[in-house]
Structure formats: structure tokens, C-alpha cells
């Protein structure tokens, strides 16, 4: 399903002097977006209002986003598609619950142009965006430390956060943009942003309003269309990937 394109090296003719190889970059697929609907199953997340659970809001928002992104030509990878967060292909019996590290593993294998971690809260209003608090690293190592793998992508993540934030402001949605260490964002090797949906008004039940979620989703999906063209994977310090490698679906 996944093929490697090494167009830069194939285009050279034997008679030409070999040009210096461009610096190797981390693999990236501009057509893939990862959506992580946080919590699920026995982990219901925070309680929003009397009968609204965070896990239900994040899943509903993920479905809306998936539809809008698919309509724009993206391939969407979701870490869960129903209430229970289960490891893919795991037997029903036994401990098959999806851990936070499993979610990061799914996202990292996709080499996505953007990874959105969807959360919800009853506090505040509008949309809260967070990117990793790690200090940026200039390049990615071939085997990055698991708990700080995001460091090489932090600059891209903050740019993605700014782009989504600008789109939300254009849609006249209240916005809080900050940095926070939210598991498992520091373990992701992709531009990663935590999107926390809060109620639109003082009425906490407004967080489940379909029209409100649709406006938020459309703003984010629109921002990702432009983002997919401008995302720049970080350099690889010492890897076994081909120079300028981009993964095509």
C-alpha cells in the first residue's frame, strides 16, 4: 500500500556530474491526517455537563473532521472508530485496550502531514489549541527517544497550531492557543496539535451542538488543506531513509 518515491535520484543521467545529494529528511505523507479521538471505553475523560462525556464529544468531532478531510482528498487514519479504544487486530479476549503509546505508534507509522489529538472540556469556551512544550531540536535522529520524539517536529507543530488558530479566528470562534505537555504528543513524529473543544457559550451542552462542531471542523479542515502543501519534515541526522524521501499512498 505504501510505496517509496525516490524521484530525485532517478532523474539523474549517467553523463551528468552527480549533484550533491540533498539532505535526508524524515518520511512524510502529505495526504495523510491522523485523528486521535482521546479517551474511549472505560476511560471516559472529563465529565462535561450532566450527561456528556469527553470521549463521546471527541469521537463525534473526529467523525465530522474525517468526513470533511476525506472530501478534500485526504486519507484519514483514526486511532479509534467506536467507543472502546481497542488495539487493531487484537482478539476480543484479553487486554486489548489501546494505550497512549499505542496511539502514538499508530500515528507515527502513518508519517502523516498532521496529527490532531482531539479533546473536550467543559471549562472555558471556544477551541483551545496546544502544541508540545519540548524545546525544538534541529533534526531528527534515526531512533529518537520515545518520550521526546516530538522535539524535531516542534517548530512544524507550532506553525500548524498558528495556521489552525488563524482559520478558527477567521470563523469567529473563540480561541486559546498555548503550549502544554499532553500525553502522548511528545512521542509523536509528525506535526502534532492538541485540539480541545470547549462549549460555544456558557451553556455546557452547547459543546454537542452539531452546527458548532461543524463550523470548528470546517475551519480545521480548511487549514489542513493549505498546511499539507507547506509542511516541511525535519532533517534526519543519521538515518537509513533515502534523501528527500516522501511516502506516497
Amino acid at each position, binding site marked *: 500500500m505504501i510505496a517509496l518515491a525516490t524521484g530525485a535520484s532517478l532523474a539523474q543521467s549517467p553523463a551528468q556530474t552527480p549533484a550533491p545529494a540533498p539532505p535526508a529528511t524524515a518520511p512524510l505523507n502529505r495526504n495523510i491526517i491522523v485523528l486521535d479521538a*482521546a*479517551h474511549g471505553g472505560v476511560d471516559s475523560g472529563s465529565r462535561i455537563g450532566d450527561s456528556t462525556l469527553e470521549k463521546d464529544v471527541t469521537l463525534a468531532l473526529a467523525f465530522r473532521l474525517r468526513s470533511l478531510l476525506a472530501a478534500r482528498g485526504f486519507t484519514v487514519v483514526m486511532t479509534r472508530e467506536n467507543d472502546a479504544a481497542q488495539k487493531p487486530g487484537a482478539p476480543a479476549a484479553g487486554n486489548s485496550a489501546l494505550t497512549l503509546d499505542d496511539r502514538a505508534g499508530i500515528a507515527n507509522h502513518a508519517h502523516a502531514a498532521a496529527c490532531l489529538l482531539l*479533546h473536550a*472540556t467543559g471549562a472555558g469556551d471556544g477551541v*483551545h489549541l496546544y502544541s508540545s512544550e519540548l524545546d525544538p531540536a534541529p533534526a531528527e535522529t534515526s531512533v529518537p527517544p520515545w518520550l521526546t520524539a516530538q522535539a524535531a517536529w516542534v517548530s512544524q507543530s507550532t506553525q500548524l497550531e498558528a495556521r489552525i488558530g488563524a482559520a478558527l479566528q477567521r470563523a469567529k470562534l473563540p480561541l*486559546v492557543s498555548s503550549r*502544554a505537555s*499532553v*500525553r502522548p504528543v511528545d512521542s509523536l513524529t509528525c506535526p502534532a496539535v492538541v485540539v*480541545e473543544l470547549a462549549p460555544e457559550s456558557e451553556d455546557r451542552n452547547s459543546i454537542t451542538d452539531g452546527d458548532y462542531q461543524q463550523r470548528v471542523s470546517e475551519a480545521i479542515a480548511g487549514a489542513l488543506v493549505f498546511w499539507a502543501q507547506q509542511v516541511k519534515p525535519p532533517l534526519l541526522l543519521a538515518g537509513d531513509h533515502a534523501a528527500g524521501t516522501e511516502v506516497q499512498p
Partner: protein
Amino acid sequence: MIYKHQRIVFWVMVGCIVLMATLLFLERQRGRERILSLANQMPLDAPAASTEPVTLDLANDDNGSIHAEQRQMALPVEVNARVRALLDQLIAEYALPGSAHPLQQGSAVSEVFLLPLPVVGYSVNSAAPLRADGTPATSPVAADTPGPAPANPGGELAVIDLRSTFVNQHPSGVEVESLTLLSIVGTLHANIPQIEQVRFLVDGQPRETLAGHADLLRTYPSRDTATPNTGGGQ
């Protein structure tokens, strides 16, 4: 016609009612003061005689900000006990009625460990002669992935062992959890300058998140977490 003894009984009953109402009001006031004093108590391991100014980085859920406030506190001399007393005072502030970042009352910190940076292990050095007390000599061994060196000589890593009773009752949400951790980190930075990094355990074990969101596995650099502009966010 109302008899004299009936009038006497009536006024005696009125007097009893007024007396009981006064007693009820006084008892209510006394109970309220007792609860407030309990909420404001500062558990100290080793109370010192004099107070000193300390800076608490207090979180505000309304605008997602942290602001520094001065308090006068009696702190122990021993550094681990000082850290614990500071954090107990910080959580006690959040447990007060009307707190801008309400948390459950109770002790949050089980233990505090301060480790010199960089963190190394020790192995028995069989080639070296025994120590004076007869125990084998040891030599420091670096970790497989060495941690960062201290920014200043004497820099330390603070390991805060939180109680599960505190963590399990903590409100869930990205902002509210992050504010608690940043408030702790900022308070330690303001008062214990040798602490350069902060890590968290829960009942002595690593735990992924505080209440489903904020990362408890990472090492937090000690820094000033007070929000420059109290507007919060962008």
C-alpha cells in the same frame, strides 16, 4: 379572656424560642470558623520559629493564567521538608473556598527526593580497596542515555511523589491539569533555586497522566511559569 398563667406560659415559650435561635446562630458561626481554620491549616514537617517570604505561583482557571503571590511562611531548614511544606501550602491555597483553581483538600505530596544532576548510578568497584567501614567501594556509572548536565553547579532534580488520593480526585482537562503542574514547577523555581528539573511519581510509581491529559512521564525544566500578560492565551 386570657388567664394570667396562660400569658406567663406564652412569654416563657417566646423566651425559649429566642434563646434557642441565639444558640443555633452562635453554634453555626463557631462551626464555620472551625472549617475555615481547618482549610487554612499549613502542615509542616518541622515548624520553624520565624516566618519568611515565599512566592507561590497560583493558577487561575478563569483565564488560564498563573500569577505569583507573596506569602509569609514558617519553613523548615531541611531542603526536602521545605519543598514539601511549600507544595502543601500551595495545594492548601487551592482548597480554600473561592479558590480560582479549586482542588480537593488534603495532603498532595507523599515524599520529595532531591537528586544531584546529572543523575548517575553506582556499581561496586571490586578493584578498589574496601572503605574504612568495610563496605565495598563504588564508582559512578552513567545512564545508557545520559540526562542533561546541570545548568549551574549543584543543580538538582526534584522528584515529587504525589499521593494517589490527590491525583485520583484531580479535575480532568488539559488546561486545569497543566496549570497544576506548572504552578508546582513555578513555585519550586521561585523558592528553591538549586532545583533545575522536576519529575513526578504517584505513590512511588511512574504514571502517564495527572487526570487523563497532562504528561507525568516527562521531566519538567524548572522555570518561571507566571503568565506575563494575565489575559491568558493569545
